[in-house]
């Protein structure tokens, strides 16, 4: 079965939908967690520490976090590889363009592909910046995420990269959520409006929620 799913264009879309929804779920949790930054360094750092102790005493320190990380990496890779292969297929299927260009209504295709690439690059930067600290602008301190976040958003490029990525995320989620519903066969004529509304609300909340943090730093609410 696994092979037939992976071999089929519809199957790969299913992989994208499922991995996308996993990431979406993670993002919602992540975004809510981020908002704790508005309640001060103590609460935020405590939350970050808690993330590593979830499941104790059954789980060892950081086990749960690593499980989540592995699931996320698998999801990101599956999502990206499917997207890459499907895009290759799509481009091969339509090698020559029409001479008569018309304004394409298909903003979704283009923003999904470019948006996906932007988000992929962002994830790499984001991990190097705030998880490993490799490219962090200030002095990265393990176990002090509050200060790390403030440092990142104290640079102009940190804000630009982040905000651009979050806008891309909004667009990506907006089409992606609805699209995943179609791929998984849960869309229907009667449900279409509701699905589109949920997609819009999700996109808006995620973007607003995530962007709130750099805005907070910039305006001095978080410092």
């Amino acid at each position: 079965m696994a092979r037939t799913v992976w071999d089929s264009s519809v199957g790969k879309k299913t992989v994208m939908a499922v991995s996308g929804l996993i990431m979406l779920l993670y993002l919602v949790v992540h975004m809510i967690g981020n908002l704790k930054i508005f309640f001060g360094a103590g609460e935020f750092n405590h939350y970050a520490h808690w993330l590593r102790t979830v499941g104790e005493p059954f789980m060892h320190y950081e086990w749960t976090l690593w499980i989540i990380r592995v699931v996320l990496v698998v999801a990101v890779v599956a999502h990206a590889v499917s997207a890459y292969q499907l895009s290759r297929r799509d481009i091969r299927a339509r090698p020559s363009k029409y001479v008569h260009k018309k304004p394409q209504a298909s903003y979704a295709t283009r923003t999904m592909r470019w948006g996906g690439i932007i988000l992929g690059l962002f994830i790499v930067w984001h991990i190097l910046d705030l998880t490993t600290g490799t490219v962090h602008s200030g002095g990265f301190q393990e176990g002090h995420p509050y200060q790390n976040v403030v440092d990142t958003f104290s640079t102009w490029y940190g804000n630009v990269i982040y905000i651009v990525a979050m806008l891309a995320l909004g667009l990506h989620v907006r089409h992606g959520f609805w699209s995943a519903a179609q791929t998984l066969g849960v869309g229907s004529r009667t449900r279409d409006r509701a699905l589109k509304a949920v997609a819009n609300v999700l996109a808006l909340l995620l973007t607003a929620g995530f962007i709130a943090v750099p805005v907070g730093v910039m305006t001095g609410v978080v410092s």
Partner: protein
Amino acid sequence: MKLTLRVWRQKNADADGAMSTYEVDGISSDMSFLEMLDTLNEELILRGEDPVAFDHDCREGICGACSLVINGDAHGPERTTTCQLHMRSFSDGDTIDVEPWRASAFPVIKDLVVDRSAFDRIIQAGGYITAPTGAAPEAHATPVPKPDADFAFEHAECIGCGACVAACPNGAAMLFTSAKVNHLNVLPQGAPERETRVLDMVEQMDEEGFGGCTLTGECATACPKGIPLVSITSMNKEWLRATRKVARR
């Protein structure tokens, strides 16, 4: 009306093509688009030039032969087949671009004529109900709920013209394939082959080199028979169901 036409000319499958410009005069707004091309071709023949080749047959919007991209739109600006498009949709002095369906699964044969046999092979892969002649039970033996019959009909209306593929930025044949899957899978007569049908047709669709679906909706907008985009969703659902069921066997 006087019009300038820019038409894709390509001698054969192997030759390179290019747009050629022609002027046509004395076009009546009551003419169909194809009758306008007839007028051009009559002139070209008399001038000893090769007339523009294009597929057409019934000229009443049902055979699915006609297949022109007009000003970037499959079948032109109206939601209908090219043969049912009338010149009243254009104005005097317009420049009109006429191109063939473009998709690697639909190679150009000549000028505006493309090879759509990939569609036939998708149907051959499973777009039927196995009912050998003479084996049929009495027609009223299995009532079909009206909503199901209507759903089947709505999808069975597909004329196989390929506008969905032509309009899709990915050259995908999902709308075509889903129309047949949905037509047959909703009927009780189609139930025994429900799983194999969708799996085999989708597999063939992929093999033919059509692109994948990114749900841009261009196909449904171009479809002269109004097959809805949600048709693809229904097929996805059938495909997932079939994949699960077949895996369990």
